[in-house]
């Protein structure tokens, strides 16, 4: 099967997006640049979670734990070992890869809701684990770790916030290109096959066990890197930063953005970064009720997430223009496949 490549329109769109991403920090205030930096970190985490939940059908309610591990890895390396901030990112990723893989191995026996509960346990436990006396010397206990804000390299006409934005953007590009390459090929098809019909996938010769635990590992790697970037952005890591609500928000972001969609990670990230603020602005008395209403509205109006809605809009627009060359081939390998999660995992 031929790997689908990008159409000229798509390439054009991406260039436009890249240009926009580079211009934004110069027209927005520093505070808004900071918000975008946070949204970019969330986008990386959401992409990681989407690999696991959207593509592979394993539901995780505890990815905040990997976010925390990544954040603390970066914070401790910077604070205790005086590492430069940029060197801590790959290490945070690798630590989480290992943690995710090890957690993924026993989790193989658990499916659907049971896996969701096991990961939930991890997410709930993490803030308290971080306060544990034995590791307090490193984690700072409940007081957390304060990180110095990175200075832009000498000679660049950027302030700290702008530099951090571009630093995060760099990782976004690297990790999204990597994910796009992984997910559109054999590996991506294998993941989707395992999600849709594990027995059939095994019959086709896919090593389900390895794939599932590796997916867990890679997913954790993405989330850990996101956590490290977010901690550097906030300049602080403490157990209260990574409560179970973070894990739930990440899952919300994945579903709102669009399951099994790479671009959905951005929409989801914008949602979890900005919608709570919008809700707070609409009603001071019950912001979370407003948040809930927005969430329900989105689920009702965009059952396949923002990415799904845009895809449908695009298809209809293309249809009206009499141009029906919407590639029907290899749906599983497209960035934006729209496959419902099948029976068992849908739980």
């Amino acid at each position, binding site marked *: 099967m031929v790997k689908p490549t990008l159409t000229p329109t798509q390439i054009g769109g991406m260039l436009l997006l890249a240009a926009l991403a580079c211009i934004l920090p110069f027209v*927005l*205030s*520093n*505070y*808004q640049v*900071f*918000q975008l930096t*946070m949204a970019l970190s969330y986008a990386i985490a959401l992409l990681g979670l989407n690999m696991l939940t959207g593509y592979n059908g394993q539901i995780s309610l505890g990815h905040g734990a990997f976010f925390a591990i990544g954040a603390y890895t970066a914070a401790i390396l910077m604070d205790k070992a005086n590492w430069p901030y940029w060197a801590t990112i790959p290490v945070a990723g690798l630590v989480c890869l290992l943690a995710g893989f090890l957690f993924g191995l026993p989790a193989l026996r658990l499916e659907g809701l049971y896996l969701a509960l096991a990961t939930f346990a991890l997410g709930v436990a993490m803030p*308290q684990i971080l*306060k*544990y*006396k034995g590791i*307090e010397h490193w984690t700072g*206990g*409940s*007081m*957390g770790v*304060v990180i110095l804000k990175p200075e832009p390299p000498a000679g660049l006409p950027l302030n700290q916030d702008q530099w951090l934005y571009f630093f995060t953007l760099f990782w976004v590009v690297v990790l999204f290109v990597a994910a796009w390459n992984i997910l559109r090929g054999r590996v991506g098809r294998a993941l989707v096959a395992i999600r849709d019909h594990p027995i059939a996938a095994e019959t086709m010769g896919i090593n389900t066990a390895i794939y599932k635990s590796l997916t867990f590992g890679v997913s954790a790697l993405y989330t850990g890197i996101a956590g490290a970037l*977010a901690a550097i952005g*906030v*300049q*602080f890591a*403490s*157990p*209260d*930063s990574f*409560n179970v*609500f*973070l894990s739930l928000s990440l899952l919300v972001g994945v579903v709102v953005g669009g399951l099994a969609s790479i671009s959905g990670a951005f929409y989801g990230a*914008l*949602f979890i970064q*900005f*919608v709570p*603020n*919008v809700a*707070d*602005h609409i009603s*001071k008395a019950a*912001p*979370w009720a407003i948040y809930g209403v*927005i969430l329900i*509205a*989105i689920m009702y*109006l*965009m059952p396949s997430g*923002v990415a799904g*809605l845009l895809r449908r*809009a695009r298809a209809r627009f293309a249809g009206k223009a009499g141009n029906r060359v919407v590639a029907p081939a290899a749906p599983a390998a497209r960035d934006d496949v729209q496959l419902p999660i099948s029976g068992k995992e849908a739980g």
Partner: protein
Amino acid sequence: MNTNRRKTLVIGAAALTGPFFIGSARAQGKKEIKLGQTMPYSGPASAYGTIGKLHQAYFKKINDEGGINGTKVNLISLDDGYSPPKTVEQVRKLVEQDEVDALFQTLGTPSNTAIHKYVNAKKVPHLFVATGATKWNDPKNYPWTFGFNLAYQTEGEIYAKYILKNRPNAKIAVLYQNDDYGKDVLAGLENVLKGDKAKMIVAKATYEVTDATVDSQILTLKASGADTMFNICTPKFSAQAIRRVYDSGWRPPLHIVNNVGASVGSVLIPAGLEKSEGIITVQYYKDESDPVWKDDRAMLEWRGFMGKFYPDGNVNDASNVYGYITAQVMTQVLRQCNGNFSRDNIKKQAESLKDWKSGLLLPGITVNTSATDHGPIDQAQLSKWDGKKWVLFGDVLGGGAA
């Protein structure tokens, strides 16, 4: 379907662009004083959110009465869910977008730790933070940050002085929470009991917030033969400790419970009111449930305020008394500004409070600050539980290493 989709796009567009426009309208000229704060309106510490609501009601009252010499106060109070990353985001919004003149009573030790360096780098007055950690009073390194609460360390010093004076041969057993808060109170005790007096502390035990009970710690402390129990616990553990001390048959002649763990509702009632008899703690503001203050003028005024401006607020919640006092102090600072509400002047006035009194503080306790002292409250009075209510006794005491 078509309309649905259009609606969706509208909602989507609003969701995406909204945040960029919100609050972008900057205040023109100086028509109002802008204060900003973050509060845990949602999340694990949401019970404290009432402080922020009370502040808003209080400044509504001030504005209804004509403001600060004619200038209205606009308090922008944002939810941070007790999550430090959210605090950073909201405080940056307040400072960079809303351009507040000062921050007031941002709540929580981790939340304030996360913004400590930032607000000092930005030179924004970081006034009267709602936490008791001692580190907020450090004008040398953090000239823009001001504490408010009686610092944990000062509280420890007060108990130590009381012990030295009344039970100079005491053998003290300490149970404390293993974090900054617990260590802070203990540090106060040890500041006073140093040198040859350090021997007075015969046993120490810690617990983690994650522990289920403190039973084994209590038994260890009891076995040390101590005759004075010093309980530095948060409410749940404080209640457990009081009950366990009693049930184990240990009747230490002196049992001190720090202010954090001395609430009637969340500690003494669960522990057993009669089991708590004789316990000593400190207070610095009036207890709204204490019948002594039933007809007190300041208390009546406070009740009137609650009824008129904050009817949803709980009049049995000490946080609402606390919030009222802090808002009064903030108002005093703004009055002292004399029309010049620059950040420099607000900071200068915040460190120029001299013997300022609130009717809700215990008689004799005054608010004092200076360029080298950013801790407004450093006095308290001892109080003993008689089985039915707290009874204040002795003089108003201050900290310091005796």
